[in-house]
């Protein structure tokens, strides 16, 4: 019965526009929906970053014109406009939240994961297509709620992307702690629900629906990354759900999970009518533990896909088998495992036993080992290879660069001693923008250029892609590298006007430099959007396998039809990294070519 239904469904792909492109159950459509939505969210979060940067460079300038666009954000009086501090807090909170969850957990994982998993494992669709469609339509309301929170009267959430109590727990703490924080929680719950549905699909599809001959150790590294990311998400996000539920109770039903007794709101202690403390014994630290139990795996949810893309792209364009495949897999598993036991490194200054701090520090530094394994493997893959400098390859090498420079500062921050000095300074902002934001972002750009044919059947423009890369690469470092210095000099993060402190005044020229770089960085992204839309409609037709790559996704049309392969699903005879095998007739042998092809018979 099942097989009959299969053929029927396969033959009759939905025809009506709404079922084909809107409420689709086809993984490719869903992947593109996720991707496009995430990139639009990136636009919003990027604009917020521009506002942040402009403010940090020139807080004393007249912003009457911005006050007209954001009436709640600026105090305009007597012909002079200045940013309100609480608006700045909303800016970085929403910038961080949107970037981390709605852009860089979404575009690589839900976007490329959905697009690529069935294509790379040789399946006609994900294991649960309906759940897959549902997950996108759960994600979208989350986005809308998050965006809408800017327009409620008291403004968006302002407690940082980490939403620490008491700012997030007391509705009256700052303007954003009211409706804005509530909407933050609702948006996050939608996001987590959709991510969970996706995770169930990812793991099941990768474990269950691999085509004949495709053992786990023949999977492209991108698939390993998706597999691990899904597991991380399934295991880590529930902690944040638990925390959010308790937060809602604290906010609305007067419980004391996170709110301690000694707390004052606007300098008035919170007391009952009898004069006893309104709350008792709650612990803001409890939130921090639960949040970071998710938060640290979350940064690897952002990073692992980029590491997977990088490996695959690197191998294709250096025409070399990826060096140390099994050690790559092990390294990713190791990173995934360690990511669950190091969350305390975000809390060195929050108050914890020094012995515990030591344990967290050691665990964190241990992550450097698998990370270094990956870097050396990449370098060994590149070593003395004939590199084809295509756009995806440039992005992949950019990821490696950012992974190294961001990783080095991570080793500093991993130790409690230096971290006490550097915590909550711009040094941290520099670190995580390089390694997490940067590597993930570059990974997405690389993957976009690489797999664009499987999205739209066309290639992206190479000249535009390269211009976009070089502008982004240079200004990305220009923006975030100097932040290390001002951070060491004591420039704290999350501050709307650093120059209220005498000792930070000399740093203004560096901040101006950073902002100029950031503005160019922001503007360069226009190139990407132009390239994306132009190429989607007018780009060069790609053909099945434009990059001469080996994976299963390159054995079918671009874009693949409904059901992915017009005929039988190919069988797999080897791993996807068979490049420059001297015994083979061509310089690459695809995964589905039978044994004879490799031996050159």
């Amino acid at each position, binding site marked *: 019965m*099942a*097989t009959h*239904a*299969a053929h029927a*469904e*396969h033959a009759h792909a939905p025809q009506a526009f709404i079922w084909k492109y809107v409420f689709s159950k086809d993984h490719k459509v869903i992947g593109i929906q996720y991707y496009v939505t995430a990139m639009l969210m990136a636009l919003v979060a990027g604009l917020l970053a521009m506002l942040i940067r402009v403010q940090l460079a020139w807080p004393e300038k007249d912003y009457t014109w911005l006050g007209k666009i954001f009436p709640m954000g600026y105090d305009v009086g007597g012909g002079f406009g200045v940013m309100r501090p609480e608006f700045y807090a909303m800016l970085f909170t929403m910038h961080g939240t949107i970037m981390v969850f709605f852009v860089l957990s979404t575009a690589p994982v839900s976007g490329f994961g959905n697009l690529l998993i069935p294509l790379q494992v*040789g*399946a*006609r*669709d994900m*294991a*649960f*297509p*309906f*759940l897959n469609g549902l997950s996108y339509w759960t994600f979208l309301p989350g986005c809308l709620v998050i965006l809408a929170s800017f327009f409620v009267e008291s403004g968006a959430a302002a407690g940082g992307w980490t939403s620490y109590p008491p700012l997030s727990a007391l509705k009256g703490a700052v303007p954003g702690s009211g409706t804005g924080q509530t909407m933050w929680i609702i948006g996050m719950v939608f996001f987590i629900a959709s991510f*969970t549905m996706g*995770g*169930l*699909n990812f*793991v*099941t*599809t990768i*474990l*269950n*629906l*691999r*085509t*004949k*001959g495709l053992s786990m150790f023949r999977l492209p590294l991108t698939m390993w990354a998706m597999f691990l990311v899904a597991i991380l998400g*399934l*295991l*880590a*996000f*529930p*902690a944040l*759900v*638990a*925390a959010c*539920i*308790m937060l809602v*109770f604290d906010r609305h*039903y*007067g*419980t*004391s*999970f996170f709110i301690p*007794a000694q707390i004052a709101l606007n300098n008035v202690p919170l007391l009952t009518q009898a004069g006893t403390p309104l*709350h*008792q*014994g*709650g*612990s803001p630290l*409890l939130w921090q*533990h*639960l949040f970071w*139990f998710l938060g640290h795996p979350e940064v690897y949810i952002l990073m692992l896909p980029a590491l997977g893309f990088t490996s695959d792209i690197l191998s294709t364009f250096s025409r070399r088998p990826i060096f140390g495949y099994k050690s790559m897999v092990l390294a990713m598993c190791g990173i995934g495992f360690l990511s669950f036991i190091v969350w305390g490194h975000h809390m060195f200054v929050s108050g914890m036993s020094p012995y515990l701090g030591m344990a967290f520090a050691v665990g964190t530094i241990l992550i450097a080992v698998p990370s270094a394994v990956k870097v050396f493997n990449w370098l060994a893959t590149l070593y003395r290879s004939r590199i084809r400098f295509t756009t995806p390859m440039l992005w992949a090498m950019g990821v490696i660069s950012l992974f190294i420079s961001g990783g080095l500062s991570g080793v500093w921050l991993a130790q409690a001693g230096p971290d006490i000095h550097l915590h909550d300074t711009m040094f941290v902002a520099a670190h995580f923008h390089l390694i997490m934001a940067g590597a993930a972002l570059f990974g997405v750009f690389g993957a976009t250029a690489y797999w664009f044919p499987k999205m739209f059947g066309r290639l992206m423009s190479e000249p535009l892609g390269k211009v976009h890369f070089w502008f982004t690469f240079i200004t990305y470092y220009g923006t975030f590298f100097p932040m290390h210095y001002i951070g060491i000099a004591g420039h704290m993060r999350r501050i709307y006007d650093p120059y209220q402190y005498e000792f930070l005044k000399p740093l203004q020229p560096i901040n101006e430099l950073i902002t100029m770089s950031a503005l160019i960085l922001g503007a360069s992204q226009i190139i990407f959007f132009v390239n994306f839309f132009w190429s989607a409609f007018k780009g060069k037709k790609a053909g099945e396998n434009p990059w001469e790559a080996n994976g299963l996704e390159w054995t079918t049309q671009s874009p693949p039809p409904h*059901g992915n392969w017009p005929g039988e*699903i190919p069988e797999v005879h080897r791993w996807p990294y068979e490049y420059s095998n001297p015994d083979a007739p061509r310089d690459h042998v695809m995964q589905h070519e039978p044994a004879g092809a490799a031996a050159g018979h």
Partner: protein
Amino acid sequence: MTARTLEQSPVHHQGADVPPAGPGAGDGGSGGGGGILADPARLGLWLFLGTITMLFIGFTSAYIARRASAGWGGELTPPPLLWVNTLLLLASSVTVEGARRRLRRWQPGVAAWLGATGALGLLFVAGQVAVWRSLVARGVLLAASAHNSFFYLLTGLHVVHLLGALVWFLVVLAKARRLRYTPGQDGLGLFATFWHFLGGLWVYLFLLLFVF
């Protein structure tokens, strides 16, 4: 689950005319892997149970951490009705197994045993609501102590999960009544797994809240 039907992995190719491996089928699996790996729906369910488990592990760690500080309370003892509810829920696990066994042997009475399961589940929910109401009437309020807060929070969350299971139950019941299940198919078995899980979760929460 028709959800699975698009794919043609070797696992299913070889078993194309064998029904997916359910507990009764026990074909040991061929190709890519047997047992849970042969049945996407079952694997998906187990993964889902894993995330729910993590959710309650999160609450458990919060519970343990929070218990050490002020305002814990802790004088709350289980109301007698809670024991009755526990028995109801455990009994419903037995009845759902009864339904499964009859289906497996292709005997009549599947729907009746299922009906009993649903009724017991509903009674449990009603019983929990009654417990809350009596406690509130006695002045045991949510925000009065952290122990109270956890009690309402965890029992409430469990009931929410159970209500979700009851929605699924309606689907299962409808399919069983229209004889949509054949002995080899395991939609009922999946539901039973989830139902047992919720029973086990309840016992765990009971122990956590009142014994440990």
